[in-house]
């Protein structure tokens, strides 16, 4: 049993309980301690404040405000938090977003267990980590500039956009983010303007085509 992560304290956020269990066992096997687990983004901030972990490992897509918004919220309060984002998707938009917002690392969930542990080690050591499978797409996305209208969305708008694209209503999204429905409505208005879409179905289509959600 290697102890490469000896003494590292981890907060885990993933809505899939068995996935959390697997990651926890992996981390513990490598000598790390999982000090807190959350099945949604909202719980992460409190867990962080309570435990002050060395690293937060968080899935991008979770119920509630989701990973990206939770990341933003956490970094607003704790700018020094080291966060490794996990995603099941292979697109370039979400990783670029997450890295811009301030995540230290981004890893695909299908990576091998060793790669997962390595990524955790890198980010816990306050260095940056980007999944090799994503590196090219992210680099290309940076080079091609803002050809994609989704890039013009602000962080908040993107978070709202992702939730709406998943089929949640304005009121539900407002509840998720603790915003007033009219604020979410304003975001929605800007989103529609920027993406040039008319309705929820088209919104979802844009998200699907950009690989932001699986349809």
């Amino acid at each position, binding site marked *: *049993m*290697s102890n490469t992560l000896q003494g590292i304290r981890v907060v885990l956020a993933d809505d*899939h309980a*068995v*996935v959390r*269990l*697997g*990651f926890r*066992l*992996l981390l*513990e*096997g*490598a000598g790390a301690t999982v000090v807190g687990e959350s099945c949604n983004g909202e719980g992460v901030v409190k867990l962080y404040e309570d435990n002050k972990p060395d690293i937060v490992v968080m899935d991008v897509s979770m119920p509630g405000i989701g990973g990206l918004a939770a990341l933003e919220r956490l970094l607003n309060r704790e700018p020094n938090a080291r966060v490794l984002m996990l995603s*099941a998707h*292979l697109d370039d938009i979400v990783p670029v977003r997450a890295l811009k917002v301030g995540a230290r690392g981004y890893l695909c*969930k*299908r990576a*091998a*267990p*060793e790669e*997962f542990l390595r990524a955790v080690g890198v980010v816990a050591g306050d260095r940056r980590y980007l999944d090799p499978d994503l590196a090219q797409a992210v680099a290309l996305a940076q080079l091609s500039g803002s*050809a*994609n209208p989704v890039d013009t969305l602000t962080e908040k708008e993107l978070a709202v956009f992702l939730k709406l694209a998943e089929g949640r209503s304005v009121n539900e999204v407002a509840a998720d983010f603790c915003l007033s429905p009219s604020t979410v409505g304003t975001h929605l208005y800007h989103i529609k303007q920027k993406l040039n879409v008319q309705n929820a179905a088209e919104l979802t*289509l844009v998200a*699907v*085509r*950009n*690989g932001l959600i*699986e*349809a």
Partner: protein
Amino acid sequence: MRKPGQFSLHTRISVVLTLLAASLLLVLSSLWLHGTRASIREEVEAATRVAEQWLTALSSELGSRPQAERVIGAVRPLGRIRANGLEVIAADSAVLYRSPAPTYKSGRVVPGWFATLVAPTFEPRKLALGDLHIVLYPDSSRALIDAWDDLIEMAGWALLLLVLMFVGIHRALDQALRPLDLVMRALDRTGHGRFDTRLPDFSTPELDRLSRAFNGMADRLAAAVDDNVRLETEREVSQRLQGRLEEERRDISRELHDELAQGITAVRALAGAIVQRTQEQPSLHVPAQSIVAVTGEMQEGVRAILHRLRPVAGAGLEVALERLLAGWRIQHPDIALQTEIDLGDRPVGDDAAQAIIRIVQEGLTNVVRHAGASRVELQVTQRTGWVEVSLSDNGRGLHGGASSQPGCGLGLAGMGERIAALGGQLVLDNAPGGGLHLRARLPERSTSEES
């Protein structure tokens, strides 16, 4: 339908025919007038001649210088001599005697125009009898009255004849042209979209031909409309099928992603944890390592399936194609794939992009399944509003048992329908060097996407 002030065809034809008959009658009547004029002249001439002879005979009876009273006494009982007026004039030009007015149809005169047309002119005949003169005035007025009466009677009959003729022609035409009304109504109904309208057989050959031509036209029209409806229905059905298919794909994607992929991630992490903890127990360590490896492959598999299922955005067509081709090359290293992708600056419509990806997918799948080819050439080019896909291999081509194999053809047929729905065409034929040549051409964006 009939403009005001316009007579119907029947009336116009009847009028023309009646006028023709009337002018014929006019010619006949002018001939009759001519004849009448000649016969009146002859009749009066003859009467005058007889009267003259008779007077000559009388004068020789009365001697060379008769007294006026004797002469008058001789002529008075005669009255008028055969349509001749008679005067006895003295040497001083005094009229001693004038015969009375005619009693036949007395008091009647013919219209002046008729008299000028028909009446012959005669010189009065004078006969000297001593100092006296007897003057004969030939008078055709009674003959004229007879002729006039004849003319009036004939004109009456002629008028009656013309009226009867007009009515008769009108009736006959009415009868003969009645089908025209039917034809008119049938055309009207057809014009309003009632393509089931048909005309009956008519007894008039011309109209019967018209009727048959009309019915033939209506049959073809109805068939064309049926064809259109059928095509429209087929298109709708295929579009619905396509929609259902995409929906199904989305459902499968979601399930694969949410359930299967997460599950595999969990198993992989758990297996990884077992690997960590079983360094000293090879009987557990090795199988756990295998689980890690296999779940990795499973994830790759899921990822590949998700990629296949994911709708392609038009702007990402080139990237999507390259991904697809790269994956295919890895899976089939034994087949040489030559590609030439030349997409213009204008983005391809989303529908077209998806269709192109599916065409290439299906085409390549087909090559692997049925062609037995070792070399494949793919060209995707965008020019002047169209995207063209050309895929050729050096395999078995169209002939050979390929179509009997399950799965073949169906994919290509579905593709053809999809391409047609987007306004494009799909052509399959044999490549010049053997093997199959697939060519698809579709508009870079479908009309429904234009907005």
